[in-house]
């Protein structure tokens, strides 16, 4: 068992290891063939008007498609023939495609969730649980019948039947089914590592577990529900955006419907098919068709980072975060301190100090101990040596002596906490140089930990152990600052040490000697000043703060209480991931804004295609091909039929073209709001106005070349 623990810790906290960056454990290609196949079918199933009625924009398109189909059939029955019938038929066809494309976009996004849900479902256990009965006897019960408060026993090889808390024993558990992480983790009674998840597997020892979830409410059940979108509720911004596009749809409905009487007054006949085409081109079909796909994909992106968001609202709130509270240890710094420098007392050579320090640490398997061996080797060429086992006596660290070391013939080497070493030296009747204390104080001031080293009860000097800030953190904090997000480091260290580390890591502020209630007070203070706060936590005493924070990310390794208090759970238990979550939240909102802007801006070009075509014969005089408003056709589209068709086809194809953007999110760079706005306005606003012109022109050329529309 010990080996497993060590392996695990080594893996997680090996000195000098790169910071655990985001792992896209659940990444899958954007267009996974099985998902695409399923989505194609779903797109047709979504043609059901009851499904469409939930989306006002697409419902209008659906009605438009139905009406134009009827018009087409009517034309066929009445043998109207010619370009008119071909035109109405093509309009109907492309309008149906528009509805299908939007359905396909949504189905693709949902399909990715479903694929994940299927994987999760496989892990749902169907085995029998060993339930402890009222009299202490063990009975076999189906896992699905377990209720809150039941006690079960899980031995080696057992799958834990449901979510629970370890109340007795310790075990290593394989949680790869939910985290994708193959290294096993320790779960033990009491403390912050007591929560177990249904579907995970005990691989050593045994535990007694109290079940904390009723059937259908377990973690895996919730995960399946979330990724499948079964519990997906519209987020606040999505609701507001839906109102906006529904409002625009009604306004455009008015603008097109009143053209009938206006046309009548002007003495021009306006074809219903053209009116429908104009309406569909004007209403924001691009965003209307992609809106739900964007939301589902956002949740999916969070999931790909192995974070489980309890609601879309939480992901959205992450984009709004102003303040990030980050625990120092494990988030900003590596979990352990490392030897950075040897500081000898006057009269002692560095070489001797390094040599003694290395000797004392040879048997020290802690990361700190090994870092001392490595530093001595790298800086002073001292190789680890082989000691004769018979003559060597290792002195292990104890809480009483607070020292460790080694005795070899003629040499008694000790290292330990400065005060402990001073007491040890004094007790042997040797005087302690005053410099020992002053060097130690200086190190404390710089945010480090001093370890004193003695050889035969004579102090040699100090080893400077330093908190190691994870590589790349400064850049990430700079990015966050550029986005307007303040980072606050939370630490139990004294203010001096905290300030030094804060400075080195580049966080904006710190909270030193923090107790859980201080954290809570800080969150409330920031919120009162109008800021949204995000934090990570794992312990039970983090739970109130996790609940208070606007975005609370609980570590999966944490307690049940913490997981229930937060609105996200990080399955990898990597607190640094908070930064990715914030970025995903921002990207989600940006994508919605960008596609809305693009959708509205597109209307300008579509007007210039359809209005001249619609009124092509208005106030026409004999001998002219077209009336005066044809002058607005500055794209020089071939004919009214080809112009309207080109606009409608563009409108349909743009949905397909933007599916990758909807699923992946708009390209995101950490910048201030003003810069982001300028950039996105240029790309999606100005781009939205300009892009359709060449494409509509091109589609018009193709339509005429393929004889789908008349050339004049």
């Amino acid at each position: 068992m010990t080996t497993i623990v060590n392996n695990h810790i080594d893996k997680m906290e090996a000195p000098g290891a790169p910071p655990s960056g985001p792992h896209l454990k659940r990444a899958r290609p954007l267009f996974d063939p099985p998902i695409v196949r399923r989505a194609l079918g779903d797109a047709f199933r979504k043609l059901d008007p009851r499904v469409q009625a939930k989306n006002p924009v697409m419902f209008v398109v659906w009605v438009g498609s139905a009406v134009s189909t009827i018009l087409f059939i009517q034309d066929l029955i009445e043998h109207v023939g010619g370009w008119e019938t071909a035109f109405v038929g093509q309009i109907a066809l492309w309008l149906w495609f528009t509805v299908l494309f939007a359905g396909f976009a949504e189905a693709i996004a949902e399909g990715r969730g479903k694929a994940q849900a299927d994987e999760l479902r496989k892990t749902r256990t169907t085995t029998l649980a060993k339930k402890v009965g009222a009299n202490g006897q063990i009975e076999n019960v189906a896992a699905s019948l377990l209720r809150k408060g039941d006690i079960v026993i899980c031995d080696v090889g057992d799958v834990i039947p449901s979510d629970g808390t370890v109340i007795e024993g310790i075990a290593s558990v394989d949680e790869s089914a939910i985290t994708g992480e193959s290294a096993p983790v320790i779960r033990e009674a009491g403390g912050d590592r007591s929560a177990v998840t249904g579907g995970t597997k005990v691989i050593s020892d045994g535990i007694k577990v109290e079940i904390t979830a009723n059937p259908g409410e377990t973690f895996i059940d919730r995960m399946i529900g979330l990724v499948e979108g079964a519990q997906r509720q519209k987020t606040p911004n999505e609701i507001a955006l839906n109102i906006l596009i529904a409002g625009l749809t009604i306004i455009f409905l008015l603008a097109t419907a009143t053209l009938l009487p206006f046309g009548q007054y002007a003495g021009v006949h306006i074809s219903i098919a053209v009116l429908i085409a104009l309406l569909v081109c004007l209403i924001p079909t691009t965003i209307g068709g992609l809106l739900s796909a964007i939301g589902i994909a956002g949740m999916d992106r969070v999931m790909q980072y192995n974070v489980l968001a309890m609601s879309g609202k939480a992901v959205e709130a992450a984009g709004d975060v102003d303040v990030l509270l980050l625990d120092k240890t494990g988030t900003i710094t590596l979990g352990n301190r490392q030897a950075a420098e040897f500081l000898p007392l006057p009269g002692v050579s560095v070489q001797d100090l390094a040599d003694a320090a290395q000797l004392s640490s040879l048997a020290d398997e802690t990361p700190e101990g090994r870092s001392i061996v490595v530093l001595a080797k790298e800086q002073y060429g001292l190789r680890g040596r082989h000691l004769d086992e018979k003559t060597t006596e290792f002195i292990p660290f104890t809480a009483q002596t607070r020292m460790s070391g080694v005795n070899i013939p003629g040499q008694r080497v000790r290292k330990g906490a400065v005060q402990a070493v001073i007491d040890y030296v004094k007790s042997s009747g040797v005087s302690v140089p005053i410099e020992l204390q002053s060097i130690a104080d200086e190190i404390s001031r710089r945010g480090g930990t001093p370890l004193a080293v003695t050889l035969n009860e004579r102090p040699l000097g100090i080893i400077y152990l330093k908190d190691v800030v994870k590589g790349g953190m400064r850049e990430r904090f700079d990015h966050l600052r550029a986005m307007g997000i303040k980072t606050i480091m939370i630490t139990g260290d004294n203010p001096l040490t905290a300030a030094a580390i804060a400075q080195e890591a580049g966080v904006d502020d710190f909270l030193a000697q923090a107790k859980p209630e201080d954290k809570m007070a800080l969150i409330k203070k920031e919120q009162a000043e109008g800021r949204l706060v995000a934090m990570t936590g794992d312990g039970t005493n983090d739970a109130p703060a996790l609940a208070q924070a606007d975005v609370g990310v609980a570590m999966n390794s944490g307690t049940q209480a913490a997981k229930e208090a937060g609105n996200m759970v990080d399955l990898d238990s990597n607190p640094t991931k908070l930064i990715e979550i914030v970025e995903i939240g921002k990207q989600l909102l940006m994508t919605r804004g960008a596609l809305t802007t693009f959708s509205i801006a597109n209307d300008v070009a579509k007007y210039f295609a359809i209005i001249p075509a619609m009124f092509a014969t208005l106030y026409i005089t004999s001998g002219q091909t077209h009336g005066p408003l044809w002058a607005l056709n500055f794209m020089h589209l071939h004919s009214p039929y080809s112009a309207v068709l080109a606009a409608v086809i563009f409108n349909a194809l743009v949905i397909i073209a933007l599916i990758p953007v909807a699923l992946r999110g708009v390209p995101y760079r950490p910048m201030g709001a003003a810069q982001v706005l300028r950039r996105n306005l240029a790309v999606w606003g100005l781009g939205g106005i300009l892009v359709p012109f060449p494409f509509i022109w091109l589609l018009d050329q193709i339509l005429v070349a393929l004889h789908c529309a008349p050339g004049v």
Partner: protein
Amino acid sequence: MTTIGWLQIAAFFLILLALTKPIGIFLHRVMEGERTWLTPVLGPVERAIYKLGGVKHDEDMPWTVYALALLAFSVVTLIITFGLLRLQAWLPLNPQHFGAKEMTPDLAFNTAVSFTTNTNWQAYAGESTVSYFSQMVSLASHNFFSAAAGIAVAIALVRGLARKSAAGVGNFWVDITRATLYILLPLCLIFAMVFVQQGAIQNFHPYQTVTTLEGGSQIIPGGPVASQEAIKELGTNGGGFFNANSAHPFENPTPFTNMLQVLMIFAIGAGMTYAFGLYVGNVRQGWAIFGAMSFLFLIGVSVAYVQEAKGNPMIAAQGVDTTTQTMGDAGGNMEGKEIRFGQAGATLFATVTTDASCGAVNSMHDSFTPLGGLVPMANILTGEVIFGGVGAGLYGMLMYAILAVFIAGLMVGRTPEYLGKKVEAYEVKMAMLAALILAGSILGGTAIASVTHIVNPAYWNTVAGTANDMAAANVNNSGPHGFSEIFYAFDSATGNNGSAFAGISVNTPFWNLALGIAMLVGRFLMIIPLLAIAGSMAKKKRAAASVGTFPTDNVLFAGLLVGTVVIVGALAYFPAVSLGPVVEHFLMHGGRTF
């Protein structure tokens, strides 16, 4: 186009720029009840009014109470005005003995609505319909109150944005009293004097019949014109004493008064932007709004001036002399314009009066070239947010700002915020509701009026006993120009502008009723959603600003605001406009007119 013409427009804009800050400071002080140099004189009056009206001046109203107070005040004064107009025969100051025969019930309804809603659409000619009493009491009181109500609503909305976690948006009775007492009345007193000095008339004389040089006889009307004139412009009311409005020499005698009038129309609207900045604690926010408004104004006036100066190519083609100079302007389109103002003075006035919801005119918009006439039409279509009506301009522009922030704000990756207040579903719903109602009234009204057959045309729509049962039978022009006239009428009524493209005989029961309803819809169904936004915003916490916050106090935002006004405005109305002025423009260049 001449340098003098452009300089006149430039001078106007520079004076406006200089006035914005002092007026804004004064507005802010007055509306917050701070001491001004007028307090020693007007303070006791203000307190007396509150005592008389039983107003608790420190009571803070939630938006619902505020809206109810506004509605109650409007309904009561509307009914009183309707009564007074109908009964003018029995009231004093009526030397011409106008009675209920001139002021029919439908006209009285239309007129009472028109003045209550700050529209001042006039289906009547002042000099042949209403007594001096009606002018001075029934109509002028509304000129003050409707303007003050506009200021009150705007200030309520601004308070909603400025306050945090507050229940109320101010006190309607206090706001309307202060706006009238400290701002409108003193300024009108001064400007009325200036108008009198310049030659505007101010008397109670009966109309005089004089013999002209040709030996014919002419009736010269009189009346208390100068006092009406001041509030007409300052309160962006626009209802003229005479039918010819500011083209009449008794109303607008000189180029100087012309410049004064356009400045008065914009003065309070421009000052409101600065007051807004003061309220929200960052004057740059106000200047951003001012910038967006200025840009739209300058574009509009330039297009109108250029188009009118170019004139109608068909006239020049017929060999008409286009070299005659008027106010330094040579040729161009002078039809329907006053020689003493010229094209620059006329197009400046036309742009300003429609940017604002004033509706006073010094030229015939109907006679503008198609694209020149498109400018006033489009200005009203934006919702008159280019400085706009007193108060109404600011609250309309803030509605656009909220929509702009919502659409573009998402693009910075945060829940959109305006001035630290989150823009959420409720605000979007209310802003869209307002936009929808305006579009519905303008487009729907035009649609109904252009194709509806009237059941009993002899009663509902007859002007000269015509047998034509179309509502549009009253429209004098056909084709695109006739369409423009109908569209402009509903545009003007819904937008509470009150100017007319003319060309329609609108004093019939059908038109009086239809346009009256459009005015009511355009005023109150716009104000109520905006007050709802004010109430909801006031309740919200204010989010702290950071570099991640969408900036709304810079050129970029002003540009975005312009884009939103143009796109949201243009997108809904482009098809209609293309059937009116746009096609008429192409036809004119093709040699056809209507």
